[in-house]
């Protein structure tokens, strides 16, 4: 055994030990100490004060005090592990994800007050959560919300799911549906321009209207303009337009703006189921590759356990 030396400096429970190996630090009370040795190894020391016996446990890379593996610093682990993964040295191109834009057109007129608007609010939270839980949908689906109740308001401009915060809704006023539809279609056109300018690919957009009434702006220019824009858009496959009527909605009028599909009637106030279906459908759409002109079969919302009935 060779000669060695050490010097201990104490300051309350803190101890600094200088020795041939270097400097170590520790903290503790008689009989119990935790510290770090000069070589960087962390340790716990338990002993019998005064007797000179003690037990030391060193915490090395792969064990903690319970002998289990701790959670790794992920990046450090990846750097070590990369070399062992096949072709670990390769990188991937950073192309932006293709987007699936969706505009929600929500009726918040006075008649939606009370339970309907509360259920609608809860439905939006479900929508966000379901999409957020899907790794690809989270990056691909983009949501905008246009509300109409008294006035028309862009309650949420386009964002991906992680930036989507469902706005707080309150019911008031009449139903300027025509103006709202035009606002939504303008929003969509602007978004497509953004995509083109930035070289971002996108799936066929969704426009999803939910109402419990009838448009109160049918006599002005907004309504006929909205109807013709929807018909033209569907015919050119510029978007897919869906209309859902809650109890009290005027389905005859909704039929005017549904091309190739019927307006659906929400069973009761099952907004949460509606939005779960919507998020699931959008997840499917953002994956499948249809034959040109074919539509993607979606789970039937008017099936036996569905949230909708097909209106007559």
């Amino acid at each position: 055994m060779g000669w060695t030396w050490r010097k201990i400096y104490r300051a309350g429970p803190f101890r600094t030990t200088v020795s041939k190996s270097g400097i170590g630090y520790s903290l503790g009370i008689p009989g119990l100490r935790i510290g770090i040795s000069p070589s960087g190894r962390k340790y716990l020391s338990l002993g019998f004060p005064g007797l000179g016996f003690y037990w030391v446990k060193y915490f090395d890379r792969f064990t903690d005090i319970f002998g289990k593996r701790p959670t790794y610093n992920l990046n450090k682990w990846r750097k070590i592990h990369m070399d062992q993964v096949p072709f670990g040295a390769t990188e991937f191109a950073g192309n932006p994800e293709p987007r699936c834009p969706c505009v929600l057109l929500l009726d918040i007129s006075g008649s939606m007050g009370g339970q309907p608007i509360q259920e609608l609010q809860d439905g939006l939270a479900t929508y966000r959560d379901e999409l957020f839980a899907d790794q690809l949908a989270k990056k691909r689906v983009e949501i905008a919300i246009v509300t109409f109740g008294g006035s028309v308001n862009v309650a949420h401009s386009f964002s991906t799911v992680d930036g989507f915060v469902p706005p707080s809704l309150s019911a008031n006023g009449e139903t300027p549906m025509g103006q709202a539809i035009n606002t939504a279609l303008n929003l969509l056109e602007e978004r497509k321009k953004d995509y083109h300018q930035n070289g971002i690919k996108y799936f066929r957009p969704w426009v999803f209207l939910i109402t419990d009434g009838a448009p109160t702006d049918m006599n002005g220019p907004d309504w006929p303009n909205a109807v013709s824009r929807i018909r033209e858009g569907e015919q050119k496959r510029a978007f897919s337009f869906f209309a859902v009527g809650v109890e009290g909605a005027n389905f005859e009028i909704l039929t005017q703006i549904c091309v190739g599909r019927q307006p659906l009637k929400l069973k009761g106030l099952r907004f949460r189921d509606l939005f779960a279906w919507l998020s699931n459908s959008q997840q499917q759409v953002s994956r499948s590759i249809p034959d040109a002109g074919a539509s993607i079969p979606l789970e039937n919302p008017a099936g036996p356990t569905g949230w909708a009935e097909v209106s007559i």
Partner: protein
Amino acid sequence: MWNIIASSVAGTSHKRLNTECQDYCSSKKIVIGDKPSFAICIADGAGSAQHSKIGATMAVEFALSRIQQSQLNWGEINLDWANILVEETVTYLSEMAAQQSLSIKDFACTFLLGLFCAEVGCFIQIGDGCWVIGNAGNVIAPTWPFSGEYANETVFLTSPDVLDSLQFTKINEPLEYVAGFTDGLQNLLLDFSNRQAFSGFFVPFISSVHSASDKQVLDSQLALFLDSDRVNDRTDDDKTFAFAWRDA
């Protein structure tokens, strides 16, 4: 001397829905003129088509047999020849569909065919996915994924007017390597903003392949790689990757 590795792995969305991988890939050694050459053929069945996996398999096997039977030479391989081969393949699929009382649309798939030897290569593509080659130290994409206005729309072998969308490139230069892959990998391996192959992948990849001591293991390593978290974080589609290279 050429070596080839290839792997097709079902996408995570297909695994979740319990559907099989709809990609099919095959390769053959053939003699074209007097030059020992290779053919790699890959097809990706359309998700919406009922029997797209069968369509993909039939298209690939038919095209490769047809090439083998044809006793070609490199001088004959041009766009006209490619058009004829594609028409014959489509005719074959229609006949098979008719026999089973199906529509040819049920066999919808994309189609990638690469024929190459040491000095020359030709690359045919219908739809998405891509070919990438190494030539004189450069990483080049002789074809490019086709898409319509929407991200999930492409053209298929079974589409009407398919010949209008046929991509054909012939390269009369020595090739160091050839890679073919389906659309599940295109966002990872291609740089869309600059419309070129992503060399950050291919340069280290060829380097790994050259330095591998055991070529037998490379096939299974490729399969592991295609099913790794790194790849599945970026795509949940089926992934097929075929890679042929000349010994350094």
